[in-house]
Each structure stands twice: as structure tokens, then as C-alpha cells.
């Protein structure tokens, strides 16, 4: 029985010699000869992969398999591995496999791939989709619990650090606080003023436009005054600070963690909470109320400007009505919230920063988490405060 069958390469993929046969097959009785030729290298990877893994035809279990390599012009590790795979395939099938005409320069390469990939990966167990969903849900719950614990432990560590600083004021890092105050406070002033000014303008314009329909446009002053002082001023500024400074805190601490700077600090006997976290949080605690105050003023200014230019209400009347509409209580309600917001943002930003692991991806993930969490907590806190102040009648 003589069967001759050629395994042609799949049709042209822009290669130079389309009729070149990479692997030819010849069967004589129990003797199978595979003739490899041409370029057995990476750029022909897919064809070679298909050729060597497809059922080769011929007879099912030949006694002797000769792999003829005389025609091979170039062999790289990919080619060598595919030859080795062919070798293993026939060896497992009970054949005796020989390499024939192996060019001397490729001998070492073939020997090297002979030992690799001895244990194949165990196929991944398929899990149930519904089960996966439940698992994800459960993990989310645990994640929320963990996040809460991290928050509480950070609060505790900060409290200890603050107590230490009070006991030994000399060790308190005032320079660091001032530096961060400059960054999160002073440098943030222009953008905060601009944003809150615009928000004030928009509230006033919307108020005038809609209140005018039932002749209540004078009450715009009440709305702008109360809304800005109680809620909008501090809320907008907190959200901006979370995005601007909280993310910076997380990224800074995270990259310090990645580069083992935090470990270095620890080994020198410093607590990173004392050195890095406390100054940052204190800077934020000082900066945010100031920014919230300035933001509220800018928003009132914007509201007044729009009331004058768009609503035709003169500044003198606006100020007079504002005096009647708002009391010091409204101002207090807004300002009391500011330090709490600052504490929440600072703590979340720093603890997320310290949770960064080795990779660049983890840094990005924690920074995102930090901003999202801070904004969420700021809004929740604002809601809690609203209920609290309402129930005590402020």
C-alpha cells in the first residue's frame, strides 16, 4: 500500500513562494516520513500550527516516523516547538520518531525545547454563570464590610496620630502641613471660585426664569441665599476637592507604596500615618472650610450678578433682601459640615492610597475608587446632616 498525500499550506497570506510546502507526508507500509521545508518561524506561525495540529492523514499508528528536516531554511523557537510537539504526538501514539537531516546549527535549539512544556495546563473548570453572579454579589457585600473596616481603622490610626502629635507637639510636621495647605488650599482657590461662581449664576438664572411665571422672582434671593449657604457651597467644593486633591493624595501615597518608600519610612522608625497621612488630612481640614466659605461667597456674587443683569434687580435690593432671607444659622449649617467632609475625603484618599499594590493598574483602580467613594460619602454625609439639622430645627 502506497499512499502519498501532501499537506499544502493554506492558500496565500502574502508569502513569497506560494507553492512552497512546509510539511509533506509520505507513507510506506508502517513507515511515515514527514518532510519539513522552508521557513519554520514565527511569521508562518498560524499555518505551521494548523499543519502540525491537524490530523495528518496516512495511517493511524505508524511504527517509525522520520521527520526530515533537510529542507528547513530557517528554524526558530516556534518552529522547534512545533516539531517537538509533532514528535511528542507520535511518541505518545507508540511510534518511534527520528529527526533526519537536522542541520547542525539547530541541534541545540531542538534539544532545548525537548524539555519544555512537560506538564500541560489543567483545563479551567467551567463554573456556573448563576453561581458566579451570586459569588460576585457576595464578594461585593464583603467588600463593603471591608471598606467600612478600613475607614474605621484609618479613623482610629488618625486619632492615635493626632493624640501623639498633641502630646509631643515638636514631632508634629508643621512644614508638611503648610506645604499641603498650599497645594490643596491656595492653589485650588481660582478653580473653586470659578466653579461656584458659575453654579451661583445658573441657580439664579433658573430661579428667575421659572419664578417669574408666577411673579415670585423676588424670592430668587431667598432660594440662592439658603441653597448656597446651606448646601451647594460646601457640597460643590467638597466634590471638587475630592476630585482634585483626594485623587492626588491617593496617587502620591500609592506610588510611594509601589516604590517601597512607605516600607522605607517604616524601617526608619516612622509611622507613615504620622508622616504622610496626618499632615495631609489636617491640611484638608483647614483648607476645605476656607474654600467652602470662599465658594459660597463666589456663588452669592454670581447669583447677585445674574439677578442684576438678567433679572433687573439692583445690587442694593439684592443685598437688602439677602439680609432678610438668610440668618447666621444657614451659614453655620453649611460651615459645620465642611470639616467633616474634609475628614472623610482625606481619610478615604489616604487609605485607598495605602492599599495600592505593585502594579500600575492597581494605582489607577485605587485612585478611581478613592474619588468615587469620597464623592459618595460626601453626598451621604450631606444627607445625614440635612436630616440632623432638620430635626434639631436649625
Amino acid at each position, binding site marked *: 500500500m502506497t499512499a502519498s498525500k501532501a499537506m499544502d499550506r493554506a492558500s496565500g497570506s502574502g508569502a513569497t513562494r506560494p507553492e512552497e510546502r512546509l510539511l509533506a507526508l509520505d507513507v510506506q507500509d508502517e513507515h511515515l516520513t514527514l518532510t519539513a521545508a522552508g521557513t519554520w518561524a*514565527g511569521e508562518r506561525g*498560524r499555518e505551521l*500550527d494548523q499543519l502540525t495540529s491537524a490530523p495528518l492523514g496516512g495511517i493511524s499508528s505508524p511504527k517509525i516516523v522520520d521527520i526530515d528536516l533537510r529542507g528547513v531554511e530557517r528554524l526558530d*523557537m516556534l518552529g522547534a516547538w512545533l516539531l517537538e510537539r509533532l514528535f511528542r504526538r507520535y511518541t505518545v501514539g507508540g511510534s518511534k520518531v527520528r529527526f533526519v537531516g537536522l542541520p547542525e*546549527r539547530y541541534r*541545540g535549539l531542538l534539544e532545548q525545547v525537548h524539555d519544555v*512544556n512537560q*506538564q500541560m495546563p489543567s483545563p479551567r473548570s467551567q463554573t456556573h454563570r448563576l453561581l458566579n453572579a451570586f459569588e460576585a454579589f457576595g464578594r461585593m457585600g464583603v467588600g463593603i464590610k471591608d471598606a467600612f473596616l478600613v475607614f474605621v481603622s484609618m479613623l482610629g490610626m488618625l486619632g492615635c496620630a493626632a493624640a501623639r502629635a498633641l502630646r509631643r507637639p515638636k514631632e508634629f510636621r508643621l512644614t508638611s502641613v503648610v506645604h499641603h495647605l498650599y497645594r490643596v488650599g491656595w492653589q485650588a482657590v481660582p478653580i473653586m471660585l470659578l466653579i461656584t461662581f458659575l453654579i451661583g449664576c445658573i441657580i439664579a438664572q433658573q430661579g428667575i426664569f421659572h419664578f417669574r411665571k408666577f411673579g415670585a422672582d423676588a424670592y430668587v434671593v431667598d432660594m440662592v441665599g439658603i441653597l448656597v449657604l446651606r448646601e451647594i457651597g460646601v457640597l460643590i467644593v467638597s466634590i471638587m476637592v475630592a476630585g482634585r486633591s483626594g485623587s492626588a493624595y491617593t496617587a502620591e501615597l500609592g506610588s510611594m507604596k509601589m516604590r517601597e518608600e512607605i516600607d522605607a519610612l517604616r524601617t526608619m522608625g516612622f509611622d507613615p500615618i504620622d508622616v504622610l497621612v496626618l499632615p495631609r488630612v489636617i491640611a484638608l481640614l483647614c483648607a476645605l472650610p476656607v474654600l467652602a466659605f470662599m465658594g459660597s461667597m463666589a456663588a452669592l456674587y454670581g447669583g447677585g450678578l445674574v439677578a442684576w443683569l438678567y433679572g433687573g434687580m439692583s445690587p442694593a435690593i439684592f443685598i437688602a433682601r439677602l439680609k432678610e432671607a438668610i440668618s447666621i444659622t444657614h451659614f453655620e449649617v453649611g460651615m459645620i459640615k465642611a470639616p467633616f467632609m474634609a475628614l472623610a475625603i482625606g481619610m478615604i484618599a489616604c487609605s485607598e492610597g495605602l492599599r495600592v499594590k505593585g502594579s*500600575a493598574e492597581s494605582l489607577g483602580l485605587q485612585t478611581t475608587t478613592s474619588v468615587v467613594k469620597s464623592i459618595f460619602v460626601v453626598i451621604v454625609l450631606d444627607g445625614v446632616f440635612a436630616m440632623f439639622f432638620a430635626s434639631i430645627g436649625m
Partner: protein
Amino acid sequence: MAVTTEPEVIHVRDLVVGFGKQTVLDHLSLDVHRGEILGLVGASGGGKSVLLRSIIGLIPKRQGRIEVLGMDLDQTTDQTARSVGRRWGILFQLGALFSSLTVRENVQFPMRENLDLSESLLYELATAKLEIVGLSAEDGDKFPAELSGGMTKRAALARSLALDPEIVFLDEPTSGLDPIAAGEFDRLIRTLQQTLGLTVFMVTHDLDSLHTVCDRVAALADGRIVAAGSIESMLECEHPWVRAYFRGRRARMPVPRLN
């Protein structure tokens, strides 16, 4: 090894590289022959890494010619430059493994981008390369942050070999390794160079590496190559820096060469 008759794969002439007012490389010329391991030595901060980075095109040069694999990278199109880039592999000093990918994905990355391969073959090949550099298949699932210094070097070497390059650039491959691990790494480079037919351009400080694996040594001082040749010729060189380097107190008796 009679390699000096082989054609040059890297050809540098009159290279001038500087930053601001400082000139780091001053009319430097250097040839690397096919199939050899060239060790480049020089003082810390003397411009070894700058030379390596200029050759691979990461630092712009002020003057001179650099030809790699017979192509002047300034004259060629982006397409050709990229195809040359596929024919070399680089082991950066700190590994430069992508931190968000596993070690196996790091090795697969160049193959995935440049070759058309099936997922299972990619897996097998990446594992093969990892095993060849002395890592295990399980190490492939780790992230770079979980590796030791020596493993990082090995993983980075596996990645630099991903596309079966003709030239491998090694920037201080044995720095930070203990002498035993460094010796193993040297042997590994030697074996790979022989089996894969690589040309190796190695920046190193390790006198043992120079003695054991390098076919030729080039000494960089004052911004130029002051001596190039076998390690024996280095020992005879009279340039003050080369003399201090190879015959100083830290230079011991030559270690037997690996072949």
C-alpha cells in the same frame, strides 16, 4: 571563537550624543559582529546606557551614523524601523515588565502583537520561553510585583526573546544578583546565544561576566571607546581607566571561560 570575520550587525560611527551643554558620547565608533557577545564596560554615569539607548533609538543623537542589521534607522520609514525592532530584544536594567500583566502575558505581548498565532500555541510558546530561561510554568501566572530580583531578570529575558530576535541588548543583566545567580545568568546567556545564534550586546559592570561569557569587551571612557578586543587585550591595555578597571584591586584572576 572566530567571529571577527563575520559581518557587523551593529555599526556605529562618529556618534555624538549629549544633553544640554553636556556631551556624553563624543565621536564614538563601535562595531558588533554577528554571533558574538560584546561586553561594554565604562564608569558609572559614563554613558554606557546612553550608548545602548541611542542604538535602539530611545535617545536622539546629534551626529554620526548608527546601523543596526544593515539599516540606518534614520533613513528608513517607520514601517522598516518597526520591522527592525522585531529583530532585537531588550532587557532593561529594572526589567520593565508591564506591571498589570502576568509574566506569561508579558512574554506573549510581543508575539500577540506581531505574529498571528492561536491562543493555545501562544500559551505553549510563552511557557517554553519561560522554562528556557529557568522559570516554571507556574511562575507565568505571577505578576511582576510578586517576583524576586533574579526572577524579574529572567522574565524580562524571556520577554526579550519572545520574537526570536537576532540581537539581544542587555543592560546590566547581572546587577543586583548574588554571584551564584549572576553566574547562572551568565551561563544562561551563553547557552541561549549558542543555541539561538544570538548576537548579544551587554552593558555590564560584572568582571566575572566579562571574563566568562564575553567574546569581546569594549571599554567606554571619556565619551568614546578607548579599547575593544578580547579580555586578554584589555589586561594589556595601557589606557589609565582601563588599567584601573581590569587591573585594580577588585579585578581578580581570570575565571575559566564558558564555552
